[in-house]
């Protein structure tokens, strides 16, 4: 166990180091200390981008773990409650009607994501059966609704500019990350992650089925909603800045489970770290082409086959 944790930590350090030194503007170790231009690039662009990839991926990994554990389903991800669609609608709305200020787009996307969660939970509460499946079904309905809204917004958009911006946002990228992006993301991620770690016990109790958990004194519905809200806040804070990033939430916990099988805080932490490492590597790959490709291209290229392999292995066990 100790050796495995060491491995993950080392991998993380490697990913961070690579990320700090890969990029369009050539940086050298001495250059960072001597050349003011290199310093500016490092502190204003390279370092923030690395931090966003690390902490953003971390947040997505944690959120994926929470969703998979709460819904007792290895294929669950925050998309189950429609977070991504909500954020997309928020971003598209901002791009169309609020101008192109990055901060406005971020706030609008964040609001969209959280509102969609509330809508999903509200819809599910109208049903007599308050179980997990109801939330999933409500999420499907809300996702469809959000997609319709998104299509309507896209139709309104000018194909030359606004539509292109919306499509690019939907594909996700860390291109625009600068020093000023950090305050939008880091505080929320750190705070909510800390909260989730402190509340981990409640994630554990939800690994039991509802009746069992209730008989242990758990308020199942409230706990579920609370944890979903925290996980959604994590995802919303990341994707409102980076746009939609595919697969990290879905994949991270599976990768972590290769090292730690049982549910405990270590697995939780590893899910986060796995997410961070994945996003760091994917983002490094995006910096290698002349026109930077959206990060979801690489998370999908790496993620889809990886997921198939991991799920296939699980079948054989």
């Amino acid at each position, binding site marked *: 166990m100790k050796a495995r944790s060491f491995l993950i930590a080392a991998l993380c350090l490697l990913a961070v180091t690579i990320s700090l030194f890969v*990029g*369009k*503007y*050539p940086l050298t170790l001495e250059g960072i200390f001597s050349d*003011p*231009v290199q310093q*500016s*690039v490092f502190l*204003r*662009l*390279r370092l923030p*981008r690395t931090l966003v990839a690390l902490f953003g991926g971390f947040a997505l990994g944690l959120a994926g773990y929470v969703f998979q554990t709460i819904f007792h389903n290895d294929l669950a991800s925050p998309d189950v409650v429609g977070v991504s669609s909500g954020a997309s609608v928020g971003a598209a709305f901002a791009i169309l009607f609020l*101008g*192109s200020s990055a901060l406005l787009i971020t706030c609008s996307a964040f609001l969209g994501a959280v509102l969609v969660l509330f809508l999903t939970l509200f819809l599910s509460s109208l049903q007599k059966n308050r179980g997990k499946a109801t939330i999933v079904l409500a999420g499907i309905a809300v996702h469809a609704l959000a997609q319709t809204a998104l299509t309507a917004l896209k*139709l309104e958009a000018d*194909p*030359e*500019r*606004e539509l*292109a*911006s919306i499509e*690019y946002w939907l594909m996700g*990228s860390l*291109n*625009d990350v*600068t*020093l000023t992006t950090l305050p939008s993301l880091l505080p929320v991620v750190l705070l909510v992650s800390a909260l989730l770690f402190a509340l981990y016990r409640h994630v554990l109790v939800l690994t039991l089925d509802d009746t069992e958990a209730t008989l242990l004194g758990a308020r199942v519905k409230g706990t579920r909603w609370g944890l979903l809200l925290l996980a959604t806040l994590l995802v919303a804070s990341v994707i409102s800045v980076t746009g939609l990033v595919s697969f990290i939430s879905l994949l991270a916990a599976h990768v972590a489970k290769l090292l730690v099988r049982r549910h405990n805080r270590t697995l939780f932490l590893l899910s986060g770290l796995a997410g961070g490492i994945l996003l760091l590597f994917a983002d490094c790959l995006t*910096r290698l082409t*002349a*026109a*930077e490709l959206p990060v979801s291209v690489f998370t999908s290229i790496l993620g889809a086959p990886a997921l198939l392999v991991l799920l296939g292995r699980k079948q054989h066990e």
Partner: protein
Amino acid sequence: MKHLKRTASFLLALTLTLPLFGCDAPKGTLTLTDQAGRTVTIEKDPEAIVSGYYISTSMLLALGEKNHLVGIESKAETRALYPAVGLDLSIGGYGTKKAFETEKAALLQPDLIILPYSLKQSADEISAVTGAPVLVVNPESDPLMQEALSLLAEATGTQEKAKELTNYVDEAISKVQTLESTPSVYLAGSDLLRTAGSKMYQSTLIQNARTVNVASSISDSSWANISYETLLSYQPDYLILSSACPLSVEEVLSDKNLAALSAVQTGNVRKMPSLYEAWDSPVPAAFLGSLWLASVCHAEYPVSAFEQTAEEFYRLFYGI
């Protein structure tokens, strides 16, 4: 070199249509091949033209066809050009790049309809419903823009005017080509970090100004997104904001992330102006964008030369 190529392609387009004159076509008609490869027969000298694309509208106006326009594209009220030439804005609203108002257009009983390339699939159907011939234009690069212009000239019998216009433009551009230096330019599109690669029309605009596009290593045929780092590694001599860019020059100069950019440090940041039209799309006046850029980047080409040419061009060809 460039202007030779232009004239050549214009003449080529013209000669391609000549053989068709000998065919069995009823008197008073022309058979043309549009830019979607469709063979279309139209009646000579159309008097009721509907143009569903702002670029073809501008071209038709430059060819002197203002009085024959009975319908133009939607959002016509956003174009400063139209009120300036005295075009009645009520003829607007007949379509966008995404969809054409077929039924509305049919009411006008037009003699000719011009559509953008994005609607090429519906061209035949629109023609059938309205009973009018449809020409599809695709002016998305310099040579294609020339082709489109000659096609429209052919259709409206204004080849003389078209030749005049092409010569004027070629001459203006050739004056710039003799300039000595070739400074590098970064052109920001609808966003600071969005630029045009070598395959895009805007790259030609840059080249015609005897400047170099720093983003020419990008081969996307649509706007490409880059990062601050990429921009910094480009270190262009001049940073140009297209007229569509929402940022102002001051905002760019005060962007801390660009402080290391030499263009920012020397204040070589400009926003492309637009007189009646935005010049970073392939309208006939687009060459003015290159002239303006040249006037910014080359000391030997004064702004006054550009301003004079701009004023003269619109006077000669648009009557403003």
